[in-house]
């Protein structure tokens, strides 16, 4: 294959090749597309010209039909390659070659007779097109792909072409054998009726095909809409109804609004539920969400980096959750949670703006801070520190080395 081909896996589209042109570039282009030396094709064309002039006619036709390389319409002419299938250009090239050979044979007298050969050739071509078409239809993936392409009707066009070729071959055969004359009187009216019928039905048929596509798109859209409506109904509308009933309890309303906001955000992000993700950041956010729900206080979580949820990390999250509960209970307003994860260490800060307290002043029997936070962190090889300034709030600092 030519080194100039842009993609090695794909033969260059069928064009006249100007660079390699001797005359009009037709042979060079064909050769490039078919992977043959243009010389071979040139010889064929010259032979065909010598044997009755057909070569010259074919060459002229091809010259007119093929876009020169680099022309704008070339891009449109290019037929997409279906996996496992040959493109039109190859088929056309093969057809030309077969035709040339046949004409050669005819010239040399190796010939059965016009009445048999031409119909057989036509029927073979038509049959080939139909068979390839049905083989492709049986394989649903490329068929769908073809249908999805703009101008997906080309599959139908190919089938029609195949049918036309075979029918044409049959008629030609009958004509050569003079079997058609009695039928002509019957056939002519039939053809006229057929043409008229096509003219009448074609617009309706096209509308039907378009209508089907529209209907399918509409069905998909309405399915999506139904899904969205179901979600909004289950979540947002329920929450709004609840909020209207609790309108005399601003704390409850704020908590409801926040929970709904959280759920909606998670849904919009298309993410899985926090609990399913199994990372430290997700577990922290889940814990924060629970504390928000239980205590009606906003808990803002900011995480930098993330880590898988090991046993130590779970202990860290549990300690952080306890700190959030304390902050929500004794603090004033929103709770800030920050988690930073790097390769060596995880650090979590839980901060509130409450009145603050002194750890030493907390009675020994209060499990909260001493046991659930400090003790838990120490058991898992971490540290916990409580920084509290009277009047400025409390910050719990949790640190744990990463294994």
């Amino acid at each position: 294959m030519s080194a100039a081909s842009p993609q090695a896996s794909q033969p260059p589209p069928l064009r006249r090749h100007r660079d390699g042109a001797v005359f009009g570039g037709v042979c060079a282009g064909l050769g490039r597309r078919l992977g043959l030396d243009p010389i071979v094709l040139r010889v064929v064309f010259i032979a065909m010209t010598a044997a009755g002039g057909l070569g010259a006619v074919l060459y002229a036709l091809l010259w007119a039909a093929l876009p020169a390389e680099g022309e704008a319409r070339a891009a449109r002419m290019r037929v997409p390659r279906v996996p496992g299938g040959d493109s039109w250009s190859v088929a056309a090239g093969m057809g030309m070659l077969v035709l040339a050979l046949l004409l050669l044979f005819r010239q040399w007298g190796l010939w059965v007779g016009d009445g048999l050969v031409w119909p057989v050739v036509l029927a073979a071509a038509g049959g080939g097109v139909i068979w390839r078409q049905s083989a492709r239809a049986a394989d649903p993936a490329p068929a769908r792909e073809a249908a999805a392409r703009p101008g997906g009707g080309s599959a139908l066009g190919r089938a029609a072409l195949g049918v036309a070729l075979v029918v044409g071959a049959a008629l030609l055969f009958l004509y050569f054998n003079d079997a058609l004359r009695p039928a002509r009187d019957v056939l002519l009216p039939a053809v006229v009726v057929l043409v008229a019928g096509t003219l009448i039905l074609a617009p309706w048929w096209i509308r039907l095909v378009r209508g089907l596509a529209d209907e399918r798109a509409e069905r998909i859209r309405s399915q999506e809409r139904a899904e969205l409506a179901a979600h909004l109904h289950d979540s947002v509308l329920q929450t709004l109804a609840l909020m209207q009933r609790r309108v005399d309890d601003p704390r409850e309303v704020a908590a409801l609004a926040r929970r709904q906001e959280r759920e909606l955000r998670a849904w919009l992000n298309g993410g899985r539920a926090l609990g399913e993700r199994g990372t430290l950041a997700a577990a922290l956010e889940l814990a924060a969400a629970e504390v928000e729900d239980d205590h009606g206080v906003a808990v803002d979580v900011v995480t930098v980096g993330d880590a898988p949820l090991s046993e130590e990390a779970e202990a860290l999250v549990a300690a952080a959750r306890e700190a959030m509960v304390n902050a929500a209970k004794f603090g004033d307003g929103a709770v800030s949670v920050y988690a930073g994860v790097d390769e060596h260490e995880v650090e979590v800060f839980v901060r509130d703006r409450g009145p603050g307290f002194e750890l030493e002043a907390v009675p020994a029997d209060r499990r909260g801070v001493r046991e659930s936070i400090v003790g838990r962190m120490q058991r898992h090889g971490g540290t916990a520190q409580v920084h509290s300034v009277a009047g400025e709030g409390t910050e719990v600092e949790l640190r744990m080395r990463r294994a």
Partner: protein
Amino acid sequence: MTSSVVIVDDHQLFRAGVRAELDGLVEVLGDAATVEDAVRCIVELAPDVVLLDVQMPGGGGVQVIRDVAKARPAQRFLALSVSDAAEDVIAIIRAGARGYVTKTISGPELADAVRRVADGDAVFSPRLAGFVLDAFAGAGQPIPSAVDAELDQLTAREREVLQHIARGYLYKEIGARLHISAKTVEAHVSAVLRKLQLSNRHELSRWAVERRLVD
């Protein structure tokens, strides 16, 4: 002297709410609901600060910043949005906004943020600070031979300041904790903003998009 603002948001209810909340704290010169209206309004009224919604039909806040920049390149913007997706936040900051706050912010806090942006400072919400730390994390070594390698990394001090913002501390509290003045804290944040806007580290944009995929 009170700062003047123009509010740009496609939700009428929200514009009215912000107007009411800022009443008496900040002078609201006008508001706009579409990108075209906003550009016309801002160029005409020349406010100190534009409160800018990120997500609007017709290109959103980023488009407003781009279009206004042709007539008023020094116009200051404060992004105000319900979205806390990294790609939205990073995009509007990279487009030129000097700060980012969420719509749940209280009236006085918002007025304070407007004043700071009007003074040429940067306003980072805890979440934005977290995003920036995340985006600049893993930068590791600066890219060798890069002329502006310092743009691609945060200094230790800047990290410290950002981390405190992410932990919910105010500038003056951060200053007190780090034994520096609030002005110095602001200088650090402004430096981070500059890096965020000017760094052409390709990871930065990619990071914002990828974060959404991971989320």
